[in-house]
């Protein structure tokens, strides 16, 4: 079965990422203990959890940056563990990752950064690549003069936008965002939320977002995955508010949680 379909609420939803029995840990300390997770096509999934519960490790495990101890991870219906390099490249073409600090290549300009994936996979004319870079820049709301700048000349928020533009360069099916609004002022964070929502709608993206920002969760996500007790609990924000687990209660009903409501 390719992709896998789950019948939920009478609607067919395609499972785009399927994690089963994931075990991760350092030494004899377990971070994830047989964790299961489904991500559906076209949804925005927020991943939350206390510090050190392995949110980023989960993201890194899915994109293959972290060697998992056991379990299976299927992306686009294929188990990533059994793929050769060429097959993995086919998958890597279809996802984009925005790292916490943007991870822009410091020796290249922003336009060149966005063109890196294009250059890697396609034989495009420089003109077309310039046009695409310019289009992606305006998509993520960066001014035109940012194109010729180097990453060190940009502010934190602009770096994240540029990182997002690079992640979107190949029009991926899924984007992974690692704490996209951390370190941004509330106004920039709001704008980033809007941006993610808009792009998700217009590009029909699936978004896997690790975040701590309750406002972001409320504004952008369809479902939220909470990492507690080395497992994951998934639900909408309202479902999770009713969850009796003490950490979840504190998280969503603490002063910040209520303020974001």
């Amino acid at each position, binding site marked *: 079965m390719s992709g896998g379909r789950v019948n939920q609420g009478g609607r067919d939803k395609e499972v785009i990422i399927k994690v089963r029995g994931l075990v991760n840990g350092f030494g004899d300390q377990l971070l994830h203990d047989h964790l299961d997770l489904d991500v559906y096509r076209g949804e925005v999934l927020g991943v939350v959890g206390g510090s050190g519960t392995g949110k980023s490790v989960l993201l890194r495990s899915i994109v293959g940056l972290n060697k998992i101890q056991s379990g299976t991870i299927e992306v686009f219906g294929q188990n990533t563990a059994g793929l050769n390099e060429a097959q993995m490249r086919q998958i890597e073409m279809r996802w984009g990752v925005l790292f916490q600090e943007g991870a822009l290549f410091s020796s290249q300009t922003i336009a060149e950064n966005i063109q890196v994936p294009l250059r890697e996979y396609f034989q495009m004319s420089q003109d077309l690549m310039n046009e695409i870079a310019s289009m992606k820049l305006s998509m993520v709301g960066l001014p035109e003069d940012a194109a010729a700048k180097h990453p060190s000349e940009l502010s934190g928020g602009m770096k994240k936008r540029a990182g997002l533009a690079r992640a979107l360069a190949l*029009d991926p099916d899924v984007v992974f965002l690692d704490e996209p609004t951390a370190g941004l002022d509330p106004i920039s964070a709001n704008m980033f939320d809007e941006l993610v929502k808009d792009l998700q709608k217009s590009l029909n993206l699936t978004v896997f977002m690790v975040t701590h920002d309750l406002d972001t969760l409320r504004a952008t996500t369809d479902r939220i995955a909470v990492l507690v007790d080395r497992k994951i609990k998934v639900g909408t924000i309202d479902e999770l508010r009713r969850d009796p687990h003490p950490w979840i209660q504190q998280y969503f009903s603490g002063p910040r949680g209520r303020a974001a409501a």
Partner: protein
Amino acid sequence: MSTVNDATAPDARARFRMERKPKSLRLVVEGEWTTKDAAKLDVQLRALQLGDAAEAQIDGSSLERIDSAGTWLLVRTKREWESAGRKVGPILLPNMYDSLLHTVEHEHTAPPVVIHNRHTLEAFVERVGKGTVHGVYQGAGILSYVGRVTLEWLEAIYHPRGNLRIAALFHQIEETGINALPIVGLLAFLIGIVLAYQGADQLKRFGAEIFTINLLGVGLLREIAGLITAIIIAGRSGSAFTAQIGTMRVNEELDAMQTIGINTVDTLVLPRILGLAIALPFLTFYADIMGMIGGAVMCYFDLHITLAEFLRQLQQAISLNTFLVGIIKAPVFALIISLVGCYEGLQVERNAASVGKLTTRSVVESVFLVIVLDAAFSIIFSIIGI
């Protein structure tokens, strides 16, 4: 009557065809218009001829899939036709792509990114100019830095605040001196062997093998041991100084020190300068000895000169001055290496790439200066007749 001209192969993943009528034309696009085929479509679309039609339309209503690159190609084509004076109706796409089309068409109106050509004469002149100005500023920067370090030194000597960090000083001596003993010793030993071997080979022809020892003694003590040691230390400790101080700059540790009120030159630079100035003469002395041992070993095996003969000849060949001339240069080399290393460390900008760049520069500059200074010393010594 419509004629079908310019069209893609009917079995392509992304297809289009031009339907031309006398007064209007219609571009019908079908299939999957994605980034995968953008390069090919780009060329084909640019080659389309408009003819004399006054009206045009782009119809993608039967597309199976389109992404932002595909949409961009359609939008660009539309804009090109419009600027060629044609009346172009709105692009037709399946409903689900409405917001994508909106995003691409309305948010992106700026001209495409221009990447400047870096190989023009103008760019060359600009680079030369920038380089010159940078060089002048660099020189002024070094001068003012040397001035500052000198003042801090005088300050530390005349008003000892007890804050010339003794622990830091000993740490530096250990780090730059004691920990460098194995590598300096081994290399000096090998240089001694090589020098003795080559010297013996040449001098044998005149039956003057015994003078290998003179060559060894004078060569090593006056020049080579000191030079080799300074170069090793420039590579080993000069680079470490730049990297350590540079990493602290990247982590904002230097800024933190400044806000607490700690003098960075006092805490970071002075112990390194003094530490290396103490360590390097000792290292040079050690390299002298190891080089001599290497030479003696070679003389024994190659020329069958016993240790007693070796020492007797050595005593005749060298005087105390020979040794002093070599050793007196060591603190000067140390000063240069640590000054350059610390200076470049303080120049690091707040990004990781600049640490690497300046570390390289620090090593190149200090090795260069050490060799230049060594030559200058030779000239001075020959003038004053030592």
